[in-house]
């Protein structure tokens, strides 16, 4: 079994999580992430369980909410914690193009 992840593997997972890494971090995480991935690999040793899954220990089914409007924020409150804003809008400091779309 190899001892650490490649740089590319670390950078790939950093990409998924949108985290920029320093050279020092890349080296450290090559080893540390490998260890965590080895940990979770142990799941493949578990045998004998049935197919049912448990998403969470929900005790009830979802209660549906009546379609009645409640209180909303003042646009000022929306902007209160936003690092950048312009007029009533929260601003992204750069132009983004396209769209992932819903």
């Amino acid at each position, binding site marked *: 079994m190899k001892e650490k992840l490649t740089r590319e593997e670390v950078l790939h997972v950093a990409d998924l999580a949108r985290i920029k890494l320093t050279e020092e971090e890349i080296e450290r995480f090559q080893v540390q992430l490998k260890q965590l991935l080895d940990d979770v690999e142990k799941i493949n040793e578990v045998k004998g369980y049935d197919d049912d899954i448990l998403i969470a220990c929900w005790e009830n089914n*979802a209660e549906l909410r009546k*379609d*009645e409007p409640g*209180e*909303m924020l003042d646009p000022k409150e929306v902007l209160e914690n936003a690092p950048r804003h*312009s007029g009533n*809008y929260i601003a*992204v400091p750069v132009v983004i193009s*396209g769209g*992932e779309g819903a």
Partner: protein
Amino acid sequence: MNYIPTIGVEVHLELKTKTKIFSNSTNGYGEMANSLTNVVDLGYPGTLPTLNEEVINIGIKAATILNCKIRKQMHFDRKNYFYPDNPKNYQITQARTPIGYDGYVEIEVNGEKKKVEIEEMHIEEDTCKSAHRGNKTLLDFNRAGVPLLEIVTKPCMSSPEEAKAYLEKLRELMLYGNISDCKIEEGSMRADTNVSIRKKESDPFGTKAEVKNIGSISNVGVAIEKEIERQKKIYDNGETFKPQTRRFDDKLQDTVLMRIKETGNDYRYFPEPDIPFVVLTDEMIENVQKDIPMMPDERRKVYVEKGVSEINTNKLVQNRPLSDYFNELLNENTNFKIASNLLLGDISAYLNKKDIQITDTKLTKEKFLDLIKKYEDNTITSKNLKEILDIIMESDKSIDEIMKENGIENITDDSEIREVIKTIIKNNPDSVNDYKNGHDRAIKFLMGQVMKETKGKANPKLANDILVEELK
């Protein structure tokens, strides 16, 4: 070289609810930026989703209308992707347990009927709206969390015409079901399409291109046409292309590359732990289904059966409020032909002039039935109707009262009219002779005299009958 196109369509509809899907802030359009939000819509730390009952109900309704099977136990899933318009950087959707699946929509292209198969339809949340200004992108969270229904067809269409017919039909059905207002220009209906081509049916599907952001149904047709052409050219040159996402450029009237798709979209789906199972009981489903209005195809069938002309039938079905009004009459014993003529004629003219709906007027069902009857037996003439229509539509009074107040009292008394006619025959022997000698227009002169004598109040049909009788 000839190719067979394979086309699938994905439609997003914004649902007509009062509040958002996972929060109780208002679902509205065109309001001041960021005035329709709360901490849930903004994805504030610690917030959790709630689930709008009406969204589930509309989902059941849409699934029923699209002939889908309805899933009795559902959960939601998280679709993870970073994007500024995605407040939590994950979207709550239904990846594994869509509320509806295995449905179809019937379309007709060039006189041929075809079923467009619906793969699945699921509910999810909309993203926020972004606008580009100079070197900034501005975010308005009013749309964040607006309920969406995504309806996905199987790759079962083979021409732009079919795709257009499907979208027209879907739009009609969803409008009729009150699912969405389906305004493409306001973004409450959005269509994306997947296009591939292959040489023959037995070949595997060709490489797929997805075309997004198409601004009208007719442009969906153009986009598909252009995409088929583009792919043909590539294959004819012996080249290939990678699966990709393209968008439709309105000015170019052509598709433009957005991005090449990575190997499988990595949305890192997993079940949403914050929303327990949604369980639909038969009772819930039946409660929704019983309120589903009659759909256009059935209306067309019923109207024609009731004797309405084909032209009037189509005009009625295209006018939802009038059609709904007309449906109220279906169980009555009345003259549907006249009813449709009146609704599409003078009444429509009145409504257009006033820019109001039939339901905004004082024309109750009973009053309309009375009007139809009086019109049918000539108690009210079309000339009369033009005089008093405004009053009928605007006053609480009955037709009889209105006629009386406006001096429209057609003499339907047989003997009174006969008296007048006898006098006229006596005073106009020349005309009577002309009539007896086969000059038909003499009767028109005599009728004119009758109407003159009765100040136009004689029921013309009745008067005509008596005159002919007396002339014998």
